[in-house]
């Protein structure tokens, strides 16, 4: 069974800095996969490679059997790849539901005339989209806040809005960049449960980039560990957590 996402020997260098040095990453369908490593390990760069924002100098990148390097960043949404961002790129001046609707952008054929005229087909499509967006907000407990400006919500709530935006279009591959940063322990627990349930009900494949190894326990199937742009370990969260090399990387090995 071909893996959903497969990166082989990916290398990214810019300006004398080697961000990724021959990295492998293989994720089968419907797996929750963790990507961890200390700061500067190259996790975000790897994510950017997958999203085609960063171009690798070497290596292959395939998704559902296709060479993803042939696709431009704006095509990814149509392929079912969706992501969240570390700096929460939400439209602060727009409502929660408007932000979530952005996630549906690629999945609604739009007629500009329909939208401008605001009648007929355009109207119906908009209503249908709103219902879908509301459905995406429901499991996150944000239904009541749908019309509230995002700028007014707490940080944790805004992260949930971003998540809703990322999965509203029922992607195949969901990429989460530091989803636990800034959340309290209750919110983190909620998030873990939500992701597990979404994986089974929506048949999602999820890649979670995080610092937070504990978050991955009991949730991720496997974890890839990077340090200084290289793979240093791969295994279940428990295996990885007690792996000598991983511990060294985090603490810093001073010979």
């Amino acid at each position: 069974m071909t893996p959903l996402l497969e990166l082989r020997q990916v290398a990214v260098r810019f300006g004398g800095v080697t961000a990724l040095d021959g990295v492998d990453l293989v994720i089968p369908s419907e797996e929750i996969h963790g990507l961890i490593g200390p700061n500067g390990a190259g996790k975000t760069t790897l994510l950017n490679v997958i999203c085609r924002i960063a171009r690798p100098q070497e290596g292959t990148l395939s998704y559902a059997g296709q060479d993803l390097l042939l696709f431009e960043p704006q095509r990814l949404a149509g392929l079912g790849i969706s992501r969240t961002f570390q700096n929460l790129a939400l439209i602060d001046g727009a409502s929660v539901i408007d932000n979530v609707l952005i996630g549906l952008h690629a999945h609604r054929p739009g007629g500009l005339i329909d939208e401008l005229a605001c009648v007929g087909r355009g109207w119906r499509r908009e209503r249908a989209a709103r219902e879908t967006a509301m459905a995406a907000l429901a499991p996150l407990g944000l239904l009541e806040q749908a019309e509230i400006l995002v700028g007014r919500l707490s940080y944790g709530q805004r992260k949930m809005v971003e998540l809703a935006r990322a999965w509203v279009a029922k992607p195949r591959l969901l990429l989460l960049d530091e989803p636990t940063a800034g959340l309290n322990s209750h919110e983190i627990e909620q998030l873990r449960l939500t992701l597990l349930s979404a994986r089974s009900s929506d048949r999602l494949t999820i890649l979670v980039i995080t610092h937070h190894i504990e978050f991955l326990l009991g949730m991720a199937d496997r974890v890839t560990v990077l340090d200084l742009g290289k793979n240093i370990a791969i295994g279940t969260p428990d295996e990885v957590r007690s792996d000598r090399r991983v511990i060294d990387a985090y603490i810093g090995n001073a010979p």
Partner: protein
Amino acid sequence: MNFDLALATGVAGIVGGAYYALLGLAIALIYRTTAVANFAQGELGTLSTFLVVLYVTRLPLGPTVQLAVSVLIAAGISAFVYIALLRARRGADALNLTVRTLGLYTLIHAVTLYFWGANEPYTMAGLFAAGNIDIAGFALAYDQIGTLVIAGVLGLALFALFRFTRVGLSMRSVAMNPEVASLLGINVDRVALVVWMIAGAIGALVAMLIAPVSFLGTGLMQPYILKAFTAAVLGGLNSFPGVVLGGLLLGLVESFAATWVSITLREPFTFAILLLVLLFKPAGLFVRQHASRV
């Protein structure tokens, strides 16, 4: 086009370009340190020139002193503008501040019109003697040379200021990254104040150089604002040498367009050149592009 005409056009172009370069520097300075696009840049110069021509020239002071007075007045007004207008309501974002300078532009223009509009245009004695000198059969006007010398000196002075002084270093740090600069202990507010004063001084200097050549009227600096902004943009707003080069380039293109193409189509032609440059180098002539952060 014969050589003499080409040379004359070229020199005129460089002189014009020197004005654009200096004003562009002032604009870029302010933009880099305070993120404000100063629409009132030209008008401040017009105002101080009016004050000098109408009040200071009555006193028996030489033209150099007049120039110095004009510069000081402008620096003072700029400081006042910064403190009173731009620091008010500190939470305001750069766009809001920019719109304030737009209001200031309108205000100063209205004020000069109110007080002095009735009797314009005024004539003003030049800083340099009239007449030309002859270099290898080619005539260069004294005021052209004078302008270039002053512009050159000012340019070098600014360069020295940035490169070799503490103040200059603070300005460059703030220009690069105000937040980090303030974390390093630089008083960003004070630097911004100094920058505004310098920009005002530059504006006054340029106005004093231009006024004797054209007439002194309330619209004195209006044609220059767009060109100054253009020079700043051509330099990428980041690279000060780029701004200088952009200004000179602009002056040359404009001058040759006026002579070769047509004087009425001078502006559209310059605009076309600007567009071409920005098409290939959106971040200016010298700067490498940065990708946006995700």
